[in-house]
């Protein structure tokens, strides 16, 4: 790569199988067009991304709540220089939006020209399938 004398390391391919048993409802919900957060049945705190155990009071009895879909953009960025595993995508915009429940969601923001995106604008949170066919969620115009 640099022209300096070197020896190539042995190649390995790494794919981890990430457990989702405890958040399965969330991933199933996305397929039904719903975005769920979790709520602790003891202290009432709400979480997104969803958690099976409450970090606030350590209670593990949670309920699933469907999120309202209107969000306000707190910040955003347009990612031009993409990592290897996202090279097949066009440059994408990522935003963090606050929902009326108080939780915030970080995801892609689509359907706008970059020049139209402003901090404070209102967007809609929707469940969808990714380009690779995996359940995901996204911000789109209201």
């Amino acid at each position, binding site marked *: 790569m640099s022209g300096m004398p070197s020896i190539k390391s042995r190649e390995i391919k790494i794919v981890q199988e990430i457990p989702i048993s405890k958040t399965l409802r969330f991933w199933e919900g996305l397929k039904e067009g719903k975005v769920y957060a979790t709520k602790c049945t003891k202290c009432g705190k709400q979480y997104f991304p969803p958690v099976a155990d409450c970090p606030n009071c350590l209670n593990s009895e949670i309920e699933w709540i469907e999120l309202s879909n209107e969000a306000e953009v*707190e910040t955003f960025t347009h990612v031009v220089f993409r990592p290897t595993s996202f090279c097949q995508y066009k440059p994408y915009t990522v935003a963090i939006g606050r929902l009326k429940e108080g939780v915030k969601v970080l995801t892609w923001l689509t359907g706008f020209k970059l020049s139209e995106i402003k901090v404070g604008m209102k967007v809609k949170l929707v469940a969808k399938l990714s380009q690779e066919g995996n359940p995901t969620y996204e911000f789109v115009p209201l």
Partner: protein
Amino acid sequence: MICLRKVAIIGVGNSKFGIRNDVNVAELTFEAVKPSFEDAGLAAKDIEFVALGSAGAGAWYEELLPAVVAAEYCGLTKAGLVRCEAACASGSAAFQTAYSVIASGQAEIAMVLGVEKMREIDSLTAMEWIGRAGYYFWEFHNFGLTFPAYYALYANAHMAKFGTTEEDLALVAVKNHKYAIMNPLAHLQNKITVDDVLNSMVIASPLKLFDCCPMTDGAASLILASEEKVKQLDVDTPIWVAGIGCSSGTANLSKRPDYVGLEASVLAAQRAYKTAGISPEQIDVAEVHDCFTIAEIMAYEDLGFCSKGEGAKMIREGQTEIGGKIPVNVDGGLKAKGHPIGATGCSMIYELTKQLRGEAVEKGRQVQLKNYIALAHNIGGTGHYCYVTILRR
């Protein structure tokens, strides 16, 4: 309250930073270790404990146990040994570990090493690895956040709230390149202008190529000793550790209260100031974590060098230049000296030790010392970890 022993820095070494494909991780570490021994007048047999900071072991370079490999290469085998990980603050985490070992009476002399080899893989794969260093599952897996993108989220929020501009961000890069030119250890030694920054390619809006630190190889070494040992060795100019403060932030950026500053920096700084018994006005020189230009502006505010929202004003007015209110990153910073992740925290302390001794090698970079107090601010991830270290001559 436990009574801790005083600890001083008695030897420092720093390799040349840059694209170092001429050396492996152990050979690069050696380049920092040897001068630190010469500086302290000690040898490997004197070191009882070694803490090494490195973040990318097995990912962007081949060795999974760099502490073991580097220790053998530098003749340090048999000393107590650990590798510390706090992402880009791994070097500071190692410093705190070695400090604690001496302060608590477990050793008289210890060594802190920081090393990173980042240029053995291609830059897109490096971007992939570093992008995963937040919350992989919730923020990278589906959304491909990169490291510049994490800080770009902060930049856009800061610009929207306080009117900070892309030109303000560019001024940080211009300042840090200016000092890097004077520092022979620095990776990027080219003079740049505001226009050069503004016209460079967009990486993650609003951050452009010249708003970002380079991917750098480098190593730094620090030798620490107890007060008793300092007296026994009759050390000429010991640099005392006055206080260390550390804190952390949520893995998910979506769980942060806002995007205009790093809570971990604020808390770590408050803890460090309290332990050292000083206020920000007393600091003669600071090293802050400028992995991206916005990070330096937020650091001014989070560390209390100015009030919230006034960071851009400090850089516009030149208050963080040599001769200004508080000189910052006069070695070139991460932005231009380079950011070999695990080495950065140690390299900051290397620079501050030289400054406090009054021997910043190039006289044009020596700050004026009034209170003989310096501060290092080292962030890991995007405010996921933070260490603030205060030194005093």
